[in-house]
């Protein structure tokens, strides 16, 4: 069944870039359209809006049309997979062989990966089309894309506001219909928070569900790759393509992957939905609270049973995260020394070259995090900070283990507020960190979570509902997300740019 999106950009003929993966799949497989025609509409639209939104760092138009030829042939040969001929944008921290991969950092401004990340290799096997590489906060460190070394992406719903981050380019590209779907990465909320702020669907799978081979490492015990899409069905299709064990990533889980699309459309009657009281805090945006509370009522109307739960260590999550993530980052980013790839500054000796390269190549937030992590790991402080952080992480994980004894999923707001103004939080790093307060615990516990549109503020800014599941139970969160989506129309709204 094809549900055509409400089209309020222009209003006349429906353009192919406005469709979803499943809608395009039917049209492509019925030979009503060709992959090249989808690309014509994608790039036509990019030409019209990209100057305003700035979702992309690199637009791979030539590569895309080459890929479209292969996809077209595969469809003619009846060899199409779910993603054959589907234009997808990829966050610019995933290696694409022969295609510039910058991490939005000056230090990698000229890096051409000699290998392909597993995620994009799997998308390639399915015959996807790469539209381009999207903008992010430098090395995925941030919540607004304002930390990009190149430019700030704008929220398609209000160009004066941020799209969220760090996968802000991917979320904005989906919301602005500059691609059909996108790939992001999520270390503390970097898929879900921008999806929420841009009014699209963002899924962070369980830690270990998707291989990180070829994802430029930020905080290895937290990083996970996932899809950003226009609806829940597309998220399931994308997850099917990228999930599964990979011998090249020893942290990827050697367990079976179900067909996630089969979870969609199942009854949610009798499922227990945990509402953690710690996530409805004083001072949170009124519109956000109202929307999330009425979303819970909707789920109740479908037979789900709300249960109050407690995640008592929620208030410690941001502090824990900023010890662990920065410590891991300080180690992971030691490799940028101007020797093997990327930018090199000159220096009078090797050490001077290292230090000049790093000082000129990294932006302020990256330097701040490297310093914080170096401090937390330095002699005399390791037990007080890093070990302490790991112990509190255990408590946070236990909170989820305990809650999931009583409920099937946990439902919360994705973000305490809607999209904020560009520049509003750049001077105070701690304020910026606190915008991830509802997403960070999920990464610390390693559980999967999805953000789906659940309303709009009085200023017409999107609000996201976060549904959190048990380890490796993406099916339950997809099932509930889909059930909610079917009886609401938030996901059909598009911004007029």
């Amino acid at each position, binding site marked *: 069944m094809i549900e055509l999106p409400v089209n309020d950009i222009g209003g006349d003929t429906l353009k192919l870039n406005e469709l979803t993966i499943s809608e395009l799949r039917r049209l492509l497989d019925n030979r009503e359209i060709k992959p090249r025609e989808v690309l014509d509409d994608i790039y036509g639209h990019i030409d019209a809006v990209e100057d305003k939104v700035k979702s992309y760092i690199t637009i791979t138009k030539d590569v895309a049309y080459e890929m479209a030829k292969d996809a077209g042939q595969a469809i003619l040969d009846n060899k199409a997979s779910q993603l054959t001929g589907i234009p997808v944008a990829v966050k610019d921290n995933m290696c694409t062989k022969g295609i510039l991969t910058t991490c939005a950092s000056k230090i990698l401004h000229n890096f051409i990966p000699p290998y392909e990340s597993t995620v994009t290799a799997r998308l390639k096997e399915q015959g996807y089309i790469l539209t381009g590489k999207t903008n992010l906060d430098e090395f995925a460190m941030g919540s607004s894309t304002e930390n990009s070394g190149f430019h700030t992406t704008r929220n398609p719903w209000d160009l004066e506001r941020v799209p969220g981050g760090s996968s802000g380019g991917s979320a904005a590209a989906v919301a602005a219909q500059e691609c059909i779907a996108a790939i992001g990465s999520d270390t503390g909320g970097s898929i879900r928070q921008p999806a929420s702020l841009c009014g699209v669907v963002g899924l962070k799978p369980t830690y270990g569900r998707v291989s990180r081979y070829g994802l430029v490492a930020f905080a290895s015990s937290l990083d996970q790759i996932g899809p950003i899409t226009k609806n829940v069905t597309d998220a399931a299709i994308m997850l099917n393509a990228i999930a599964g064990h990979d011998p090249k990533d020893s942290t990827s*889980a050697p367990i079976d992957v179900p067909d996630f699309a089969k979870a969609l459309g199942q009854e949610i009657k009798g499922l227990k939905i945990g509402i953690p009281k710690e996530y409805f805090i004083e001072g949170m945006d009124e519109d956000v609270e109202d929307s999330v509370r009425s979303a819970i009522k909707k789920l109740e109307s479908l037979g789900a049973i709300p249960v109050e739960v407690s995640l008592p260590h929620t208030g410690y999550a941001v502090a824990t995260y900023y*010890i662990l993530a920065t410590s891991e980052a300080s180690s992971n980013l030691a490799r940028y020394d101007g020797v*093997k790839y*990327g930018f090199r500054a000159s220096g009078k000796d090797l050490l001077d070259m290292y*230090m000049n390269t*790093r000082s000129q190549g990294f932006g302020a937030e990256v330097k701040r995090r490297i310093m914080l992590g170096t401090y937390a790991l330095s002699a005399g402080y390791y037990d007080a900070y890093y*070990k*302490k952080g790991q112990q509190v992480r255990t*408590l946070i994980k236990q909170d989820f283990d305990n809650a999931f004894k009583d409920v099937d999923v946990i439902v919360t707001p994705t973000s305490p507020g809607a999209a904020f103004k560009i520049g509003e939080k750049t001077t105070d790093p701690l304020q910026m960190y606190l915008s991830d307060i509802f997403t960070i615990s999920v990464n610390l516990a390693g559980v999967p979570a999805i953000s789906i549109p659940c309303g709009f503020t009085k200023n017409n800014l999107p609000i996201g509902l976060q549904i959190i599941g048990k380890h490796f139970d993406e099916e339950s969160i997809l099932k509930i997300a889909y059930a909610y989506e079917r009886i609401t129309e938030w996901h059909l709204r598009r911004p007029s740019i």
Partner: protein
Amino acid sequence: MRITNKEVKHIAKLSRLYLSDEEIITFTEQLSSIIEYVEQLNSLDTGNIEPTSHVIPLKNVMRDDFLSGSLDRESVLQNAPDVTDKFYRVPKIIE
């Protein structure tokens, strides 16, 4: 706990970063407020709590010892800022 300019200079050195005088002042201020915020963890008693380094149960990952492909040297070296023959070139280390 507030950190001092001197500590910030020391951490910068460990991090292999040069900081301008202005950056030292800003980072001292910002890192101090982040560290003060982080110290709320001290209010939790974690004496008997095992630290978590990995959230999914996973044992050492072994594989059979076999030869497999490696990256093409030329395409790897293409990314290097300075190359001589088949090697990376760096400023002199030993006098």
